[in-house]
């Protein structure tokens, strides 16, 4: 149970201000989710043939240079207990290699633009820890978590990566995720937590892998996911929002010429520039909304 937020710039001139506008959105949702927080930021694309990794290890003193060297990265940037690095596309899948060589390291995200960071603590603490205010980019989605059934851990925090450059945040509670997890595992998907949202993320990743478009994958989830949910999904060049057909969990959207934003509550949108003149609405139940540029 949680607060979720998303901010997508239609106007690329705003990109340097992403963190400045996004951080307060996340902080305002503290009362909905004080246990942990996380976000995905989409910034400049990696060099051709390279991609970005966001890695996590609980120990601040972890020796990242070996990992960076092993993956062929040209340096790395350490942000609290996370590390960001750009690595060349290897012959074998990097993620499998990671799992074998450094099983103690968690891959938070992988893609040409995405960087996911998440950790325990209040949204304010997480925002400070990762220096969100200074971040730039085209769009970001974020999450504040009030843990329901699965443990309060960094790994159990949102967003969940659903494959290259795609991630998901969720407010609500799924009611059929245990059996669905088993079915997806049979299809070769790998899960790391007991979290229901990770199953939703895995489900989308599986549909995308089958060649479905994000829109169609979300449409399909209306059939296969039971329970209450509002999802926000970040993609390489856009973002999408979906509420379940009962639509009990809240969501409000704001759109101006410069941006599209969504949040669990209007409070999180209140400080956005020009929001008083924005078009405000609530996403309809069972309808996929998506933006890209």
């Amino acid at each position: 149970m949680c607060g979720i937020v998303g901010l997508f710039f239609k106007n690329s001139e705003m990109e340097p201000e992403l963190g400045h506008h996004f951080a307060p959105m996340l902080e305002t949702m503290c009362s909905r989710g004080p246990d942990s927080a996380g976000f995905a930021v989409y910034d400049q694309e990696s060099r051709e043939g390279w991609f970005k990794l966001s890695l996590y290890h609980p120990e601040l003193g972890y020796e990242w240079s070996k990992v960076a060297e092993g993956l062929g990265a040209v340096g790395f940037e350490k942000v609290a207990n996370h590390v960001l690095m750009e690595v060349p596309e290897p012959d074998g899948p990097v993620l499998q290699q990671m799992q074998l060589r450094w099983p103690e390291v968690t891959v938070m995200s992988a893609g040409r633009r995405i960087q996911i960071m998440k950790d325990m603590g209040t949204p304010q603490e997480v925002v400070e820890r990762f220096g969100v205010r200074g971040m730039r980019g085209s769009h970001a989605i974020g999450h504040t978590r009030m843990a329901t059934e699965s443990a309060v851990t960094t790994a159990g925090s949102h967003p969940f990566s659903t494959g290259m450059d795609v991630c998901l945040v969720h407010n609500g509670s799924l009611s059929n995720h245990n059996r669905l997890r088993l079915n997806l595992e049979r299809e070769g998907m790998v899960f790391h937590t007991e979290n229901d949202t990770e199953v939703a993320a895995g489900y989308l990743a599986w549909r995308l892998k089958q060649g479905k478009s994000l829109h169609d994958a979300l449409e399909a989830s209306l059939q296969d996911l039971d329970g209450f949910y509002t999802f926000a999904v970040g993609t390489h060049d856009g973002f999408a929002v979906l509420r379940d057909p009962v639509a009990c969990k809240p969501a409000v959207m704001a759109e101006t010429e410069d941006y599209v934003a969504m949040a669990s509550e209007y409070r999180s949108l209140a400080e956005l520039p020009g929001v008083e003149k924005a078009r405000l609405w609530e996403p309809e139940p069972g309808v996929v909304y998506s933006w890209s540029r």
Partner: protein
Amino acid sequence: MNPSLRESQLFSRGVIHEIQRAAEEGIYDIRGWGTKKALPHFDDLVFLGASMSRYPLEGYREKCATDVVLGDRFAKKPLHLKIPITIAGMSFGSLSANAKEALGRGASEVGTSTTTGDGGMTVEERGHSDLLVYQYLPSRYGMNPDDLRKADAIEIVLGQGAKPGGGGMLLGQKISDRVAMMRDLPKGIDQRSACRHPDWTGPDDLAIKIEELREITDWEKPIYVKIGASRTYYDVKLAVKSGADVIVLDGMQGGTGATQDVFIEHVGIPTLPALRQAVQALQEMGMHRKVQLIISGGIRSGADVAKALAMGADAVSIGTAALIALGCNHPKWQSDYEKLGSAAGFYDDYQAGNDPAGITTQDPALTARLDPLDGARRLANYLRVLTMETQTLARACGKSHVHNLEPEDLAALTIEAAAMAGVPLAGTDWIPGKGKGM
């Protein structure tokens, strides 16, 4: 009967009868009371009375206090109860006005609280209850801000032990003019109360609802959150995170006015494991005794009360036992019970509205059978006995306050109870499942 006849365990006479009834009537069985199946319960626990290693207190002479404060986490005016036994929420509609009055008078006499139910607050019950908890239910029948402000505490009801995940029911035969008026519904129709609240879902939104209720009542009233026992460990944590002052946890044995039998017998977990999980959740959060825990569901005796307190509850709540104290299932109505195809000791048709004891009915001739003053005296007597029994056991364990009872004062008689209650099997230090959490 021919001794060679062999009854099927699977298709017992009761099962055969129910299949035939269902085939006949085409509707599921709706009844009152609570679960009737055998479940691990407080009877499966015993106290380790003091002897050499511990010193007992003298019965009747040395002090053993029983008072409890409920709701001092955020509320300006917490409840001070003289005994740790409260009366659970039961609606006017489900119960007669006389029964509600008797509960209020009896509870007030011994210094404890009563609770409204689905259907709102009556003038009589407010008048006769010194301390009245106002239930805030999904249906919001009779929900009125004036009554909210008149209440001593507010209990947000998410669920009930008899039916976690289900809404209320009140069948048409009990919808009198007054009940109908209080609920803004036509007389005589079957009422299905909602299973979810109409304007919030989940703990994140509950936190905002609690904020609203506090704002309306100027942060004076304690906010209770009542849950039916099922995913108790998580639900208790979320109730704390949502801002509850008090958690009311109703185990599977909790009674009901009218619910599908399939719900009563097959949904939820017993009081014993639910209580242990709740206390564990509170302790992990450092909130045990700070957010008070009221446990209900099958409390019958001072032994049950003392064991519940020892396991970590701050107070207990009684429903079915209170009705029995008023005269429900009393042998003096035997011939009337027989006319209904029931018998004293078996009557559970609270939904039918023709209760011979005049308690779970709105029929004026029947309700007149319960004298509220007599009922109040009986209830007060019963509550005094529960209290004295609780003190007796606490003194035997060397406690000068009943809240100093601990799980370590208990031993379990069965492996099931040891596992569920988290206390060692008697004569061993073995708690099945310990070390695996929850």
